[in-house]
């Protein structure tokens, strides 16, 4: 290069005689320096392990925040055709597993699901095509049966669904009171399920053992989810529908007629489960005095905590740790003799103590559980699910068992082996929407990206307002509140396109669009993306 005397630089032309780099460093493929390379691996959030249906919760929350409601609905419905229902009645096992729980409080997933579920009511699912000549019979039109039919129909199978009652829905339509689950919501969700097509509904068909045997011959597979059909009663009590009623039957009457007339102002309900609390609260709404008598203590009784709390707020008296020893019908009503209970054994047998108490009441309602029709359970080669198989459980557990059965049936009919995605967690999703089965623990969350923020406060109708009607108790949070809550989600193990990896990549090798792409020609393998990813989506693997 010709030397230039600085004093003689007077024009642009002279400047060009200085050494100037004009090409790009992109000729250096720095990717060759690398020993480790980043890989995009979506994993499992603890909430979705908690959820019996294993819903990909972070994913639908992500689409909600992206204002892509249709895809949020799609993700949610992929695992659970009852989002609006579950957004109301599900005890949300997911929330008890939330990584945020011990940080600043679990994300209020229930209300987010309810919000997306309510939107989903207006979005009928796409029609499914018939892909198989095989036919499946589903017995029982409750959440388990409907869920099984839904997934079979989506899988291209034709389904004949049999239901004893005049409407589909089982407990959703005939059991859960309107203040917990408005009838319109459940009805609309069932309509949406039927929109998928391929499902032929047969109402008013009472299926017994012989009928199941017959179905087994005529169909390629049979799924039975009849629910629990018979009331349990204590040995010394008989339901006479005059002084002693069945809680289930009354709930059904209330759901069908909107009201029930009982002759008496002082009502006692026997039982400590959700049904006991449901019937007690429903009757309280007719202005009666209601007692609940249960064997367990109030804290250990099996009903949901919200139910107990709200029942007491509504003025229901709980007489706990009491066993109904004797009952006398007098002309003034019922005379109950109650014994104290020390504890309740696992087989629901009480250990009594010497305490004796007497109580007068006008009417006794029995809601201590139901049993199933045992004879059907013996039939081989039939799939079972729902409460019928698992005992009294929640709606989401029924949905999950229906879903698993549907995929088990499809695998069997296609000659494949049905495999859970993880045996220990009993994890099963309808789609393989993750790259590695690894549950993200709290330690894997990069907490620096999340400041502490308490969950939203829910507004509830005041007790004195709600005892006059069957309106929903938890009011719909505003859109702003829902979005604020959705933003709290750590999105454990699921990419939400936060672009943290992109921001901190010193080599401009990351492109985030739906998922993360790496430019391996230039990536030096520093691993900052993997370390900074707030949710553990990027792994460093040895690069050979």
């Amino acid at each position, binding site marked *: 290069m010709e030397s230039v005397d600085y004093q003689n630089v007077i024009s642009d032309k002279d400047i060009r005689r200085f050494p100037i780099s004009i*090409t*790009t460093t992109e000729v250096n493929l720095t990717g060759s320096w690398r020993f480790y390379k980043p890989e995009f691996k979506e994993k499992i959030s603890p909430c979705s392990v908690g959820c019996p249906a294993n819903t990909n919760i972070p994913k639908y929350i992500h689409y909600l925040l992206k204002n892509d409601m249709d895809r949020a609905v799609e993700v949610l419905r992929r695992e659970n055709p009852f989002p609006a229902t579950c957004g109301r009645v599900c005890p949300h096992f997911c929330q008890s597993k939330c990584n945020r729980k011990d940080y600043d409080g679990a994300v209020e997933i229930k209300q987010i699901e309810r919000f997306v579920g309510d939107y989903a009511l207006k979005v009928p699912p796409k029609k499914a095509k018939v892909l198989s000549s095989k036919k499946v019979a589903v017995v029982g039109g409750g959440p388990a049966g409907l869920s099984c039919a839904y997934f079979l129909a989506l899988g291209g199978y034709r389904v004949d669904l049999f239901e004893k009652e005049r409407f589909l829905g089982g407990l959703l339509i005939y059991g859960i009171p309107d203040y917990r689950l408005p009838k319109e919501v459940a009805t609309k969700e069932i309509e949406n399920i039927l929109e998928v097509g391929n499902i032929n509904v047969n109402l008013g068909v009472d299926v017994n053992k012989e009928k199941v045997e017959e179905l087994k011959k005529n169909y390629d597979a049979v799924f039975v989810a009849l629910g629990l059909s018979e009331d349990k009663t204590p040995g010394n009590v008989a339901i006479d529908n005059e002084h002693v009623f069945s809680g289930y039957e009354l709930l059904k009457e209330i759901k069908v007629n909107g009201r029930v007339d009982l002759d008496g102002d002082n009502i006692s309900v026997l039982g400590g489960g959700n049904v006991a609390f449901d019937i007690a609260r429903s009757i309280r709404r007719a202005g009666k005095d209601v007692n609940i008598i249960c064997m367990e203590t109030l804290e250990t009784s099996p009903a949901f905590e919200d139910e107990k709390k709200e029942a007491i707020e509504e003025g229901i008296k709980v007489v706990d740790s009491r066993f109904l020893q004797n009952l006398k019908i007098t002309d003034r009503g019922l005379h109950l003799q109650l014994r104290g209970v020390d504890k309740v054994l696992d087989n629901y047998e009480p250990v009594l103590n010497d305490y004796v108490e007497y109580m007068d009441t006008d009417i006794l309602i029995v809601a201590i559980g139901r049993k199933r029709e045992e004879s059907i359970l013996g039939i081989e080669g039939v799939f079972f699910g729902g409460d019928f198989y698992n005992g009294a459980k929640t709606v989401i557990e029924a949905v999950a068992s229906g879903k698993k059965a549907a995929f088990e049936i499809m695998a069997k009919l296609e000659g494949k082996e049905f495999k859970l995605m993880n045996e220990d967690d009993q994890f099963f999703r309808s789609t393989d929407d993750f790259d590695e089965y690894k549950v993200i623990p709290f330690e894997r969350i990069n907490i620096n990206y999340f400041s502490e923020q308490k969950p939203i406060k829910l507004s509830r109708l005041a007790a004195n307002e709600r005892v006059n009607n069957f309106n929903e108790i938890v009011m719909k949070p505003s859109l702003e509140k829902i979005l604020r809550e959705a933003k709290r989600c750590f999105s454990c193990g699921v990419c939400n396109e*936060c*672009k943290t990896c992109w921001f*901190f990549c010193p080599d*401009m090798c990351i492109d985030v669009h739906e998922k993360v792409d790496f430019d391996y020609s230039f990536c030096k393998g520093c691993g900052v993306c993997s370390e*900074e990813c707030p949710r553990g989506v990027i792994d460093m693997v040895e690069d050979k």
Partner: protein
Amino acid sequence: MDFREVTNIEYMNQGDFACPGCGAGLSMRHALKVLGDKTLIVMPASCWSIISGVFPTAALQVPLMHVPFATAAAVASGVKNAFRKKGQEDVNVVCWAGDGGTFDIGLQALSGAAERKEDIIYVCYDNEAYMNTGIQRSSATPPGAWTTTTPTGNPLIYEKKDMFNIVVSHNPAYVATATIAYPDDFYQKFEKAKNAKGFRFIHLLSACPPGWRIDSKDSVKTMRLAVESGVFVLMEKEQGKPTKVTYKPDRFVPIKEYLLSQGRYKHLDKDTINKLQIMINEHLASLGLL
């Protein structure tokens, strides 16, 4: 900070010669995102003179002048005045110097430019030693730290030069400390520096994985830990206003956690760590943070 709102435009090319996990490369990338294409970088000898590529390649899409070690601020003053003469007042002339070119060798030119209130931005990316020549100690090396010239640790009496206050004493338009581990703070400070007129100085803490003896993946984490432990305080001073601490952790992490996460401090005994903790506490107390 919502990273989705950060511009996608890059002013740096791939294939630069920064080590994996380099804090300086990352800082430049984001500084240019704020400063934009109307920027000219003046660069004394430093790691970045290597990072920017060998002739005839360039890692930056904005003009960059390589200048002798001691002259960055002086050259930048000249360049800015030339632009002004040519009517191109809106060009940001930025000195991008390492700690050697700022704390030691470039200090005289820096002081001169600050004193003359030259209209330039001086960015010191501080990796706390002469890294590219082989990790020799500088006056920015913190007490206790290992370097090749302080094999038993930098003596505790060699307190790191307080560059923030040295520059503040010249009463310039804007002085700040920042690190890319705090993106919000980093962007706001560069935005402020860009919009102010007069001499502006930004002291960046910038992790050096080989020199600090850390895993390259931990570079951002280590910078963050420096702030969380109070070793590096994020603050700023605008002309005519008091010094303001821009980020204060809810609770300072013990300095031990910061020190022992790095190989350059691994020889420290408990006693030394306690002494260092006391020094940091005194500094934090003087800023009213403890």
